[in-house]
């Protein structure tokens, strides 16, 4: 590890995290409100009620503001791959490139074409064609998200590829295995349903503000019905897909799973810490630091969550680091040894190949192939460096889950009271709905923190740690771009909030 520039790694990670965090402010609202708008417009086309057309146009304007300010912020992530993460970009080869290329084509052709009709086509195309365009914008933007999430899922669960030792690239051998890997399917479904949930909170939160101000009450009660119904269905699916995602993490990233639960010592019939507070922030490098100041446990639940068997064994961090022969768990110490063997064999193979020593090259290649599945472990001497930040992962996971259940409750209550026509009297609920907008954003970011901090130190699980993924560049240049991004993105965010607030507060339904 001493051969790597850790300042460069940290700054590059900070830059990527900052860019992704800002990008994700805009994306979930686009993914969800596009469908909400399409549903509202469908009601308008079916009923012919002009108020539904005005409702559609109001939310379409907010969608447009978000889309305009957020569009292309994700491209910066691609710039960073080429400049800061060149080893990674090369190593993952076409596996990452192909989904990103498809994403670009999808985004360009579907979103760009139909979004123009959606915004500028009112009264220029037929109602049916306009409605079709609105649905295609929603489907197109969600399909765009599919490809980037498939690429991300492959990093968490790399399958369907073959590493070419001559080119140092992973080559795709089974596109369908990558596309339909359980990790990719679950990740896609969980991320889009959480984005729908957030969008629904956005709709009911803004509607709640109007009801609190007693402005355009019917207009926003209708918006609330659509928002809360959509949000309730989405949030229930979000919980189901989250549950399945946890099992996927358990299967392919057991260390992340253990970190999500702050679970240090494996056991059968493992309890789940529903709410927990660490005594003091434990040193993530020291797995013996598990101390709880307070916790509420659900017996057997962790075993059930991981395997659907309430009595199954769940390995803890200690089991993964030190191994557990009884449970057939190979220790990180052994994996480090194999990883070092694989790295050495790759180096020897290249030298032998250059010297035209075929027998030696073949022998090295055989050793490399035998040990490749632990390749990334070879960069470490101390296995404790392979443990992610446990408190950060634990608190992020529990924040996300807790808020997820809270949102279900908010949608149920909102739907009940708005259908009973009593929502205007429930000021407490209206305030909760309003404040659920930032809480929704918090839950979104917490989810990504679980996914990305929890998998550290890996950029490609088991094969490439973050520290070998970076380019050999000067870290001060990365510092400068971090500063530039902070300024640019903050200006964009302020612009979004100001324009959106002006649009919201200045709105008056012209139909009355």
């Amino acid at each position, binding site marked *: *590890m001493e*051969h*790597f520039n850790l300042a460069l790694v940290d700054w590059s990670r900070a830059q990527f995290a900052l860019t992704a965090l800002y990008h994700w402010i805009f994306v979930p609202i686009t993914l969800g409100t596009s469908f909400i708008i399409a549903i509202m417009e469908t009601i308008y086309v079916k009923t012919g009620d002009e108020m539904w057309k005005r409702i559609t146009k109001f939310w379409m*304007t907010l969608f*447009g*503001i978000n889309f*305009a*300010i957020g*569009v*292309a912020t994700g*491209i*910066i992530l691609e*710039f*960073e791959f*080429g*400049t*800061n993460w*060149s*080893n990674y*970009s*090369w*190593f993952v080869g076409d596996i990452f490139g192909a989904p990103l290329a498809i994403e670009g084509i999808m985004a360009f052709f579907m979103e760009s074409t139909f979004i123009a009709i959606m915004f500028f086509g009112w009264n220029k195309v037929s109602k049916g064609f306009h409605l079709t365009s609105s649905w295609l914008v929603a489907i197109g933007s969600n399909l765009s998200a599919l490809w980037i999430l498939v690429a991300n899922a492959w990093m968490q669960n790399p399958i369907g590829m073959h590493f070419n*030792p*001559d*080119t*140092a*690239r992973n080559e795709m051998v089974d596109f369908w295995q990558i596309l339909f890997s359980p990790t990719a399917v679950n990740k896609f479904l969980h991320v889009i349903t959480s984005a729908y949930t957030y969008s629904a909170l956005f709709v009911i939160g803004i509607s709640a503000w109007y009801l609190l101000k007693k402005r355009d009450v019917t207009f926003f009660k209708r918006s609330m019905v659509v928002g809360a119904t959509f949000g309730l269905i989405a949030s229930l699916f979000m919980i189901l897909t989250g549950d399945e995602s946890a099992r996927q993490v358990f299967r392919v990233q057991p260390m992340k799973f253990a970190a999500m639960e702050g679970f240090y010592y494996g056991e059968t019939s493992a309890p789940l810490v529903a709410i927990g507070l660490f005594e003091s922030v434990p040193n993530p490098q020291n797995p013996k630091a598990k101390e709880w100041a307070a916790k509420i446990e659900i017996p057997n639940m962790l075993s059930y969550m991981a395997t659907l068997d309430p009595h199954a064994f769940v390995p803890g961090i200690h089991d993964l680091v030190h191994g557990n022969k009884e449970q057939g768990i190979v220790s990180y110490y052994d994996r480090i040894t194999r990883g*070092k063997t694989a*790295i*050495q064999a*790759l*180096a020897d193979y*290249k030298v032998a190949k250059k010297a035209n020593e075929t027998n030696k090259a073949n022998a090295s290649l055989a050793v490399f192939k035998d040990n490749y599945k632990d390749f990334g472990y*070879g*960069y470490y001497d101390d296995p404790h460096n392979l443990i992610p930040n446990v408190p950060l992962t634990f608190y992020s996971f529990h924040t996300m889950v807790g808020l997820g259940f809270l949102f279900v409750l908010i949608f149920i209550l909102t739907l009940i009271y708005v259908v009973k026509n009593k929502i205007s009297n429930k000021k407490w609920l209206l305030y909760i709905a309003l404040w659920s907008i930032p809480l929704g954003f918090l839950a979104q970011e917490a989810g990504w923190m679980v996914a990305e901090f929890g998998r550290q130190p890996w950029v490609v699980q088991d094969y*490439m740690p973050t520290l*070998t993924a970076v*380019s*050999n*560049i000067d870290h001060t*240049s990365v510092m*400068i*771009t971090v500063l*530039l991004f902070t300024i*640019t993105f903050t200006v*964009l965010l302020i*612009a979004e909030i100001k*324009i959106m607030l*002006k*649009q919201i507060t200045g709105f008056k339904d012209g139909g009355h």
Partner: protein
Amino acid sequence: MTVGRKLWLIIIVKLFIMFAILKLFFFPDFLKTNFKSDSERGDYVIEQITSPINNK
């Protein structure tokens, strides 16, 4: 200024900053800039990812 015009202005300024400033001056493609062929790039990356062993 209408909201539509404001948004178009933001989009144009943003794209200009991204492609004409950030991409051009701050985000060159590291491997494309420094190496001529894929073969050189592959050799370089292998050297990078095997360097902890080679440097010992």
